[in-house]
């Protein structure tokens, strides 16, 4: 005998099925195919792959083949991976230094002003990344506004070359990911109970003491989340090094793109992608461990402050 069903109107788990199937088809399947491709051989004309097992793509990461056929250790790609790490690290550090003050500053404004200020922080994020990156070509140009400004002040005699340098890449990356650092730190800072700071003042603490010993520890989950949200996408950045680095400071993504473009070596591009995915995953796990540890201290996890 069928009983009347409970929980009317809340829908059923089946409603999620089309969406999940779609994501399996267009997110999971592409990842699987990359892994498969990385173990196949290069196609004759370079587009696509030849269905023949090969570990060549992974060997290419470390060795190069001379015309004579001999193999020798070649650190080119290791260097690029190292560069990518370095860029991502510098980007995280710089965004942290800039984001911390502004996040705390916004969180200490009157509540009615806060949403507006945070909205102001997010607007650039929603505009085209391509255009924002392109803007720095204009800004950092030899004839651009910065050099013009410095020249007008008489500080420099000839323009400082900034565009197409690692510096330009870092500026572009910092700009791109700044909101990703500000938002989670703000989320933590906003929940900070300012009476704790008042108690610290009352006990004789100065501003720096309160900042260092009371405020900073309580925004740590936000900082950890922010580092994650900046570091991971920065590692796989394509546009900033492509447009601002002038090809001199390639990161992993640029090499991957090249394999699927001009270099026409899909298996190698796929192997690099697999490597990038593995690194991303490892970083994710490392952050998860870190955030769990900090959650034990503050009672709040970084994941929580991300959402």
């Amino acid at each position, binding site marked *: 005998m069928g009983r009347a069903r409970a929980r009317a109107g809340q*829908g059923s788990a089946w409603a999620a099925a*089309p969406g999940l199937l779609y994501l399996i088809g267009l997110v999971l399947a592409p990842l699987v195919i990359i892994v498969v491709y990385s173990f196949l051989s290069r196609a004759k004309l370079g587009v696509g792959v030849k269905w023949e097992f090969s570990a060549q793509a992974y060997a290419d990461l470390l060795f190069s083949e001379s015309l004579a056929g001999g193999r020798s250790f070649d650190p080119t790609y290791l260097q690029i991976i190292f560069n990518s790490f370095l860029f991502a690290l510098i980007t995280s550090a710089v965004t942290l230094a800039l984001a911390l003050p502004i996040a705390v500053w916004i969180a200490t404004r009157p509540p009615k002003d806060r949403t507006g200020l945070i909205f102001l922080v997010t*607007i650039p994020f929603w505009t085209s990344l391509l*255009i924002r990156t392109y803007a720095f070509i204009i*800004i950092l140009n030899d*004839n651009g506004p910065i050099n*013009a400004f410095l020249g007008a002040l008489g500080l420099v005699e000839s323009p400082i070359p900034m565009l197409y340098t690692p510096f330009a890449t870092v500026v572009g990356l910092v700009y791109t990911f700044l909101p990703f650092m500000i938002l989670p730190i703000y989320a933590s800072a906003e929940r900070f109970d300012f009476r704790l700071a008042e108690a610290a003042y009352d006990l004789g603490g100065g501003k720096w003491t309160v900042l260092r010993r009371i405020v900073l520890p309580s925004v740590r989950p936000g900082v950890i989340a922010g580092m994650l949200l900046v570091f991971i996408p920065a590692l796989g950045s394509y546009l900033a090094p492509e447009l601002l680095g002038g090809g001199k400071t390639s990161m992993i993504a640029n090499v991957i793109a090249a394999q699927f473009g001009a270099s026409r070596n899909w298996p190698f591009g796929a192997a690099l992608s697999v490597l990038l995915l593995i690194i991303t995953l490892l970083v994710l796990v490392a952050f998860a461990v870190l955030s769990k540890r900090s959650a034990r201290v503050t009672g709040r996890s970084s994941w929580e402050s991300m959402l």
Partner: protein
Amino acid sequence: MSRRPRGTGESLKDFPLFGAISAVVFAFLYMPLVFVVGYSFNANRVVTVWKGFTLDWYLEVLQNDDIQRALMNSLRVAVVATALSVVLALGLAIGLLRLARSGNSFAWALIGAPLIIPEIVFAIGTLSLFVQMRMPLGVNAITLAHTAFCIPFALLPIRARLKSVDLSVYEAAADLGANEWRIFRRVTLPLLAPGVVAGALLAFIISLDDFIVSYFLAGPGGTTLPVYIFGMIRNAITPGVNALSTLLLLVSVLIVSISYYTSRRKR
């Protein structure tokens, strides 16, 4: 000398230099937008040397056939990807609340993946999939891929809205004689409407602004606006790029503002 703060409670909340740094950061955040927009009115063909005010570049851009074609491609992709992703996200939002815990973490991994996976990897992965399945590249391929990474953006506001609904409202509707379908149409959907609108707007600009995935999937006929702009930048920096970029920026800022106000509108 004492560094103890004196005065009112408000000043206790201010830390030295934080206000100044914040001002600098805000300037930094808006500087690129300001320069792109500003130079789009520059009469000089050399972008960064100001010569005078003109709207010529806008005329030039708007009359360009290639740009019009790229714009149409972008809009087609964005509209269809938005519609698809919103429908799928709506189902996900409702279904996920009822899904068992183990299913839920798998689902969230899938939904969050497009946000975590480096975009370049997603782009070449989708490219490989389409090539492997002998699907032609172009507007349709881009649309399918965009739908996937628009889903999380559409989902978040819808889910936030759904979670704020008092469950007894559904029970009341059933109690008053509405069956499952009528509850969905008459109660669930209207209640979710602001979330759906906000989600759709976000999905729309995410699709409209995407470059990397579109670039790899465009094929011969699928050039979207950002792909076209990339080509322009590669060739030569002209004020036309600035004019076109300004138009695209305007659309994004407008849409995100509407989305912001819709989601803040009180119930």
